[in-house]
């Protein structure tokens, strides 16, 4: 019996054997990668609901999937299904409806939205009851199977577990805008511990609905540069003014190297390291000295067992908010030092917007495509560089580069910071 392949910390090596993606650029890796490397934007005016009177009226919506009657959870589930289907097709693992490992799912909040709330209210037309008493009376009076099915936190995971036959308890996780990276980290840890030989890790988010848009807007987090939409997201530019909300899903099939080898699977890359660190400074801002972000990046690099100067490319969190991009630069500089000057860094969000809970997974898929294709996608809309952020942001056009090791960052409200190191085998 040959010895199992171990990393330099003596742990099982975790590889990626399938990936799938859906964003506002389209369905699947081919369409996404073609447009992403061509510098195309998926940001457009919102048509899903009337936006009259709103400060922000643009988003990276996913409109290419037929989800039946629209609701945010219906789209969350449909995007996750599509991404997972693509990843499973590529990995050719298990059999239809039977995946040999657990599901780790990053999902947005699931709650009733205004259309559903108003329909419930109307069910009791003429009723004297007011407020929630009336909604509760409507809920009592008859079953609401569609709402039952979709508006529970476990709903998305339950649908996916049923469809793909994943093993054990499906796990739904939230670390806000770092959730996608955390879902991958959960899979990596399970395989390293030997709890599983394979894991299906998905990040999915369909938050472009009225109230979520207004809430982010009220936090002054969103770009208000509505016209033209494709120029709004401009990470690392001096005149960046906020992120653009977007939808999408990314899925990765993780496997223990030896199991993947044994079944002859093609290996797309290695998840070498994961790092996280919580911030205690503020609900929406990071410590001014960057301690927590620096901690997450350092922990990921240390976990990967690589030197900072081995990072060939950085897939930035790069949201295009004044705060994030400045803090991300300061933290990268602290960890990478002069090596940062020589390292290309780009933000997919300049083109697809911020896919929130899905971002870490979507951007991990794109990072792996950079490794396989030797191409770094650009940061578009970089016309007015911020002199305080002197980095090689691969402006406007993609670049050929030998990419062996990628650092991918994800940060979120509530002091969430997670980084991944993805590498060629």
């Amino acid at each position, binding site marked *: 019996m040959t010895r199992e392949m171990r990393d330099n910390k003596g742990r099982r090596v975790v590889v990626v054997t399938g990936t799938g993606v859906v964003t506002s650029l389209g369905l699947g890796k081919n369409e996404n990668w073609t447009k992403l490397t061509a510098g195309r934007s998926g940001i457009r005016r919102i048509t899903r609901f009337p936006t009259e009177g709103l400060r922000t009226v643009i988003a990276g919506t996913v409109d290419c999937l037929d989800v039946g009657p629209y609701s945010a959870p219906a789209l969350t589930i449909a995007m996750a299904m599509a991404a997972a289907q693509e990843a499973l097709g590529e990995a050719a693992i298990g059999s239809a409806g039977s995946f040999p490992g657990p599901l780790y799912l990053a999902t947005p909040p699931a709650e009733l939205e205004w259309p559903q709330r108003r329909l419930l209210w109307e069910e009791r037309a003429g009723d004297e009851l007011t407020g929630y008493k009336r909604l*509760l009376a409507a809920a009592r009076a008859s079953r609401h199977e569609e709402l039952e099915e979709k508006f529970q936190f476990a709903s998305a995971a339950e649908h996916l577990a049923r469809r793909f036959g994943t093993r054990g308890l499906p796990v739904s996780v939230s670390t806000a805008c770092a959730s996608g990276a955390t879902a991958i980290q959960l899979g990596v840890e399970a395989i390293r511990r030997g709890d599983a030989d394979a894991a299906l890790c998905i990040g999915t988010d369909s938050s472009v609905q009225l109230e979520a848009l207004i809430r982010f807007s009220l936090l002054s987090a969103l770009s208000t540069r509505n016209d033209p939409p494709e120029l709004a997201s401009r990470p690392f530019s001096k005149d960046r003014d906020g992120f653009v909300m977007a939808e999408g899903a990314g899925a990765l099939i993780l496997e223990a190297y030896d199991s993947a080898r044994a079944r002859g699977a093609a290996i797309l890359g290695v998840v070498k390291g994961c790092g996280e660190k919580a911030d205690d400074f503020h*609900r929406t801002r990071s410590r001014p000295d960057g301690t927590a972000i620096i901690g997450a990046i350092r922990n990921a690099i240390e976990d990967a067992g690589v030197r900072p100067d081995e990072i060939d490319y950085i897939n930035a969190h790069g949201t295009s908010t004044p705060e994030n991009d400045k803090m991300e630069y300061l933290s990268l500089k602290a960890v990478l030092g002069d090596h940062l000057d020589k390292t290309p860094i780009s933000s997919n969000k300049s083109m697809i917007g911020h896919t929130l809970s899905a971002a870490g997974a979507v951007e991990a898929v794109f990072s792996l495509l950079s490794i396989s294709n030797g191409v770094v996608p650009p940061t578009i809309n970089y016309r007015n560089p911020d002199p305080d952020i002197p980095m090689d942001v691969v402006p406007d056009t993609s670049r050929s580069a030998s990419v062996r090791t990628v650092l991918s960052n994800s940060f979120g409200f509530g002091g969430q910071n997670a980084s991944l190191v993805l590498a060629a085998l």
Partner: protein
Amino acid sequence: MSALPHDVWITGIGLVSSQGEGLDAHWDRLARVPAPRPVVDEERFAPYPVHPLATIDVAREIPKTSDQRQMEQWQRTGVYAAGLALADAGIAGNSELLNRTDVVTAAGNGERDLALDARVLEAIGAQPAPDVYLNRALATGLRPTLYLGQLSNLLAGNISLVHKATGSSRTFKGEEMAGVAAVENAVRRIAGGEGELFLVGGALNAEREDLLLGCELDGALHRGPFRSVWARGEGGGLVPGSIGVFLVLESEVHAALRGAKAYASLRSIASDRAARRAGSTDLGLMRLFDEIAGGLPPGPLAVLSGVSGVEPVTGQERAFLQGLEARGYHPAVRAHGTVLGHALEAHFIAGVALAALAVSRQAYFPPFDVSGVERPLEGAPRQILVTGLGHWRGEGLALVEAAD
């Protein structure tokens, strides 16, 4: 998962509920007062009874009013309980330990602005342009800070902020299974050597109509008058209870090195998702039991049950207990849902907390109700089985054991 390579100790517990605040208050009421002991409000949300949170002085654990204002009640309850747990474990204020305390929470939805919702619903029908009205009403009516009160991960975020626990922060979701996943995640990370010190917990504010609406849409609520979980009749139903519960879980080695006392050891935990179909009776609980506790000798078996009162799963749990009986175990079951209410995401964690409390006091709770399902148990259990069955999906079991 059977016996763990690194033993997991429970070295701190923070608990607030309708029964009071802290372990002594819970022990006094639950172990000494004869049944029935629930604290229930049947009026406020009629026809739905709820277990209201005992009065707590949040300023004791959340001293800054600016912090209090940035949270909704479920977060304040949780942050408060987390502070109790950290203090109990001797970690509060110790920045070296807090800096590497990994926070793992189980959380659901945050709280909505119910008054705004009601205003909009009542006015929108008469508007000439309802969509424009809705946009304006929300853009001017929603409080910016409310969103942060609504994000699931902001319980963990506020714990990092207020108590400075900043190793890492992960929030699990999915009703009851969020609690199972949170505990299991911490236990497995300790067992796998991926961390030594964890703060694990959750909170529910049961006293809100948006929560009740979510449960009622699922057909899961019990309608008054109050009855114990075993006696809710054919359709069954849960009675939500306000709870904040946090545990400090620690590797035995780490706890011993810093001289921390253990309430109990969290010996093993297992979870699964049975395909629940109409008419299916077997949720695979016996297999999970064998995985975590199969080595236990037959005889009396203390069981802290997370049963919700919702059917058919409550009946399925009783069938599992009868199956244990058939194997020579004599389950002395206590359904903490009867006395604390059902706490959804936090419910399983509350069960682990009560089990650890009983083990550490070397005594057991007398029956929580008079249904006859809960039988007296002589003596002090060394092990307690904790069950956590989702009211609509997911199953988890854990074994809590004396740590000596």
